[in-house]
């Protein structure tokens, strides 16, 4: 692949004599190859996104008869969007709002809880601290389904299954977020500053809110984004918990639509248009928030 031109150039290198010239030529050719490989990778990653945009311009009839990687200009897109918005009285918009609620509010609450827990574990010494931290680390590794079955049964006992809470509550506790928050708090909040605050008579809560929180903010933003994506990605939990389609998030909603599409292919265009409309805002959000991604927090974690 990318290595091929480099190896070939290497072989020619000594024969060419002078060392400066071949090494430059080698660099240039290998980087052209590198760019090419990257472009191929980028095209592969963009293919499904490009396809869904093209396919959403097609009427149900055209979808099965025309080449689907080329847009149609017969007004299929308006029909599809109208059809989607009209589907069961605007159910699609409900799904969008639900997703925003589960992912947005869920991630916000998670960040507050994880931030506080991570900070407490980084800055206070209490008996069993290391034990609690190890249990949390182990919690990262417990498969979701192992938790989902008992969570379902427990929530069923208190009558919460099928409600918004049945999805919000279990996602709010995220061992991974607590783990990241602890690493970040250890690194970002200096003990001296907390000591100084205590001497000035600040209470512990005030210290957390006005000293630690601002210092931890970049890390908390990353935790928020990571958790937002993981909730928005989450399919199993709402799939198990919810049966009323007006409470579905986008993922479960589109899946249920696809499921019906197996017998009514006309619904396929709705699934395609819905997929398109639901990923475009998220992609836009990603591009906008790019610089807030602090993924070095993740790789730093292993050493911490």
């Amino acid at each position, binding site marked *: 692949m990318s290595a091929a031109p480099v190896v070939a150039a290497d072989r020619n290198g000594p024969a060419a004599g002078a060392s400066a010239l071949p090494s430059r030529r080698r660099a240039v050719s290998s980087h052209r190859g590198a760019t090419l490989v990257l472009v191929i990778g980028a095209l592969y990653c963009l293919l*499904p996104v490009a396809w869904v945009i093209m396919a959403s311009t097609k009427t149900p009839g055209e979808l099965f008869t025309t080449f689907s990687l080329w847009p149609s200009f017969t007004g299929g897109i308006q029909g599809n969007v109208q059809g989607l918005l009209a589907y069961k009285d605007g159910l699609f918009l409900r799904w969008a709002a639900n997703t925003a609620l589960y992912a947005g509010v869920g991630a916000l609450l998670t960040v507050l809880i994880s931030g506080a827990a991570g900070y407490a574990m980084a800055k206070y010494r209490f008996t069993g601290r290391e034990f609690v931290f190890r*249990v949390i680390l182990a919690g990262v590794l417990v498969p979701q389904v*192992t938790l989902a079955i*008992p969570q379902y049964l427990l929530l069923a006992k208190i009558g919460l299954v099928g409600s918004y809470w049945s999805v919000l509550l279990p996602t709010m506790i995220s061992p991974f977020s607590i783990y990241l928050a602890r690493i970040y708090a250890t690194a970002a909040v200096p003990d001296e500053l907390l000591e100084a605050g205590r001497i000035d008579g600040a209470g512990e809560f005030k210290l957390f809110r006005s000293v630690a929180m601002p210092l931890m903010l970049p890390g908390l933003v990353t935790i928020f984004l990571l958790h937002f994506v993981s909730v928005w*990605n989450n399919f*199993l939990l709402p799939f198990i918990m919810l049966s009323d389609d007006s409470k579905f998030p986008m*993922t479960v909603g589109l899946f249920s639509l696809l499921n019906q599409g197996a017998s009514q292919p006309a619904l396929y265009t709705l699934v*395609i248009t819905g997929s398109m409309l639901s990923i475009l805002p998220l992609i836009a959000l990603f591009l906008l928030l790019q610089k807030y991604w602090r993924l070095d927090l993740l790789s730093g974690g292993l050493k911490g």
Partner: protein
Amino acid sequence: MAPALLLFTTFLLIPIVYAIWLSLRANRRIGGGILSKLTEVFVGLENYGRALGDPILYGALGRMLIYGLLVVPTMLGLALMFALLLDLPRVRLRTATRISIFLPYAVPGVIASLLWGFLYLPRVSPIRAAFEAANLTPPDFFTSTSVFFSVANIAVWGGTGFNMIIMYTALRSIPAELYDAARLDGCGELQIAWRIKIPLLFPAVVMTFIFSMIATLQVFNEPQTLTPLTNVISSTWMPMQKIYTDAFVLNDIYSAAATSVMFALVTLVLSLGVLTLLQRRAFGEDR
């Protein structure tokens, strides 16, 4: 701290304990004839024994192994390659390609599977249409063999960018002086990558490997989403699907709990094992 601990206990510890409790019980018919009724009783390790003797579970595990062997090396290999290429000096379109390759991370697994599912679906697929236009036999993405590649491709598509960014971020934190020194000593870019970058990337690679392994053990969304489009993916194709089917379709939460507890244990042992093994090798007395 207090609310976190409370929630942690309620939604993590209690469910785990409850799952273990459930895994040791079962519904039994007590009494005989029309007076018999279903009662939950303690059955010890019976559910575990039954799960371990269940050929359906082994089938699912085997398929998961094939799937993992396809996904993890391909995804991490591609991620590493892209990260190293992005880090070369004088590469063009660096930002555009980096963002494009990261983009699939913004697409949830279910929606990614929907999109690829349509790209695979015979009547819609533009890939098949392109083959037909060139008078070639179009590939069938949904045979019992090719479906492994089809599902693996979705995971590779969705995961490469995220892993690439982790590795790329780690690469960016290596001081440039190291490369300058190596270049003065006559190292080519390939040698720099092999001798300096890859060894220093090791912690990031280990972490992405563990994440990918956990994700493989838990794969559910992608195959589940494809089930309406094809018959080759059964309701017990992957272990998570089997657990789901046992619990919520067949209403046998007890054996589902037993299987899921075993899965949690395997995940725990595997991840900690890999971590300790690699850390001992990589970091010496670091820990």
